[in-house]
């Protein structure tokens, strides 16, 4: 082999490496392996489900990874995951791309999540309406005294744009408007809690499980869907009853209706046992 051809072969191998897709749904011997990918919000819930399921179904091996709802949906489109866990609806553009790849996204609601609005414990504001939240996150309101609070600037915190919660909040609270450019995008929920607990002007949104875990470090606000409506505190009861307005379903997406091991797993998640796990991990059961 001459020098130049071997160099060429090496470069070809390196270029080809990222192009070869990983086949999904591989059976290893008698065990079926199932991959679940997607929402970081749901990783804890899904892996708890997977552990419980594998205890009673030793023939199935489940691997759970996060990365975010978008990553999970992209993986479903590319066929590199069996189940995609998503904390937001699939977008039309994603559905179209799935169709181009000869796939269809089948949706199952497996749990519910409430989003709590948290502020610094010293803040005297205890209720905000959807409209006020929208004006805060689009920088129409930039000081707390515009919503009945102290005279200090508002420090609006959000998750990164890759988060399913970001898109959910944008769609339902900002009514599809863009976030103001001054909104700080935090890489993790823990960073939002950290900032809200130390910065007096901060406001942020986190899952209600996280807000309750944070305890006295943050103050959880009551939310009014309309100006004249009742102010509701987030809790399991108010999320399930629909009284608390900033709540969302959590989804599983599969390529077509689930079959085989995937169907057994989805059915398990929706069973009484599965829904008990939902409650234990800080989310709200679907029933």
């Amino acid at each position, binding site marked *: 082999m001459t020098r130049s051809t071997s160099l060429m072969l090496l470069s070809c191998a390196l*270029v080809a490496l*990222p192009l070869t897709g990983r086949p999904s749904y591989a059976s290893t011997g008698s065990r079926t392996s199932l991959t679940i990918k997607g929402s970081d919000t749901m990783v804890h819930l899904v892996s708890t489900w997977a552990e419980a399921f594998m205890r009673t179904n030793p023939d199935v091996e489940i691997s759970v990874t996060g990365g975010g709802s978008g*990553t999970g949906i*992209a993986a479903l*489109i590319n066929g590199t995951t069996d189940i995609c866990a998503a904390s937001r609806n699939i977008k039309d553009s994603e559905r179209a791309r799935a169709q181009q790849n000869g796939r269809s996204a089948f949706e199952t609601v497996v749990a519910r999540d409430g989003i709590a609005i948290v502020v610094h414990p010293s803040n005297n504001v205890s209720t905000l309406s959807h409209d006020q939240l929208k004006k805060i996150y689009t920088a129409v309101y930039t000081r707390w005294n515009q919503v009945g609070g102290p005279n200090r600037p508002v420090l609006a915190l959000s998750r990164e*744009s*890759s988060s399913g919660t970001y898109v959910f909040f944008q769609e339902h609270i900002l009514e599809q408007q863009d976030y103001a450019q001054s909104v700080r*995008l935090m890489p993790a929920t823990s*960073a939002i809690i*950290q900032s809200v607990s130390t910065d007096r002007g901060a406001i942020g949104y986190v899952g209600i499980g996280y807000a309750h875990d944070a305890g006295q470090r943050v103050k959880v606000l009551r939310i009014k869907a309309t100006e004249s409506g009742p102010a509701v505190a987030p809790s399991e009861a108010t999320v399930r009853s629909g009284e608390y307005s900033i709540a969302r379903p959590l989804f599983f997406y599969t390529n077509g209706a689930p079959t085989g091991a995937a169907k057994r797993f989805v059915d398990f998640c929706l069973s009484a046992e599965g829904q008990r796990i939902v409650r234990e991990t800080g989310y709200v059961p679907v029933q």
Partner: protein
Amino acid sequence: MERCVELTLVVAASTSIILVGLIFLFLFREAAPFVQHPGLSSLMGDRWIPVSFQKEQFGIYPLVAGSILVTAIATVVAVPFGVIGAVYLSEVARPAETETLKPFIELLAGIPSVVIGFFGLVVLAPLVKAAFGLETGLNAFTGGLLLGLMAIPTIMSVSEDALRSVPASYKQASLALGGNQIQTIWRITVPAALPGIVAAVMLGMGRVIGETMAVMMVTGNAAQTTFKPFESVRTMTATIAAEMGEVPFGSDHYRALFWVGIILLVATLLLNIVAQRVLKRYSVRQ
């Protein structure tokens, strides 16, 4: 047989060149379709709104400004410490001191950036907030301080090499003419080593501009075009790290992120090339 060994060595030696070439190729291949749609002009804007129900916008000015601001602050912080530290290590410190100090400086270079970022979020940001009476410590200044900390080892060790390579005859001449130690250091040794120090600073800047994790945790990541140190900024690296994992494969957003990557790569490459040139052209020959 001999040819075989030779071949292996050639391949091993050229791996890094091939890799850089392939990375460029790969970046351009992924970024190229953006040129036709929506067009390179859409990168020239001051709004980076990649996830929107209205209109996705990929203006990179805020990201470039963010990277420049954080890098500038980090350089201002790191240069005095790095250069003065290097002067001390090479000219003043006793051998025993050098041997104690150097491992610690190297240790600082080895701390994973996510650990430094966590330190920044929990310790440095509240300190910056308290020291300047700010509403929050999540801003470009905190990011610059952290990155400055990370650049000090690079600047210090390369500067030290430069200072040590100044010929002894220069210093001897100065001392023989009656100059004291301080005069010799600042008027003779440092000026003679200046090209090396400049290169050290540039290599340090290269490290800073490419740093991701630490800066993502403390700058607040708001994509606004600003050069005020106490505002929140979003750097190019943080943008790629935060968004690449989630971006729909093959979308405009995906390709825009590759353009950000290309700009970043070109910037660091230029800094490195200039630094190498400066080192080569002006280095003192013994």
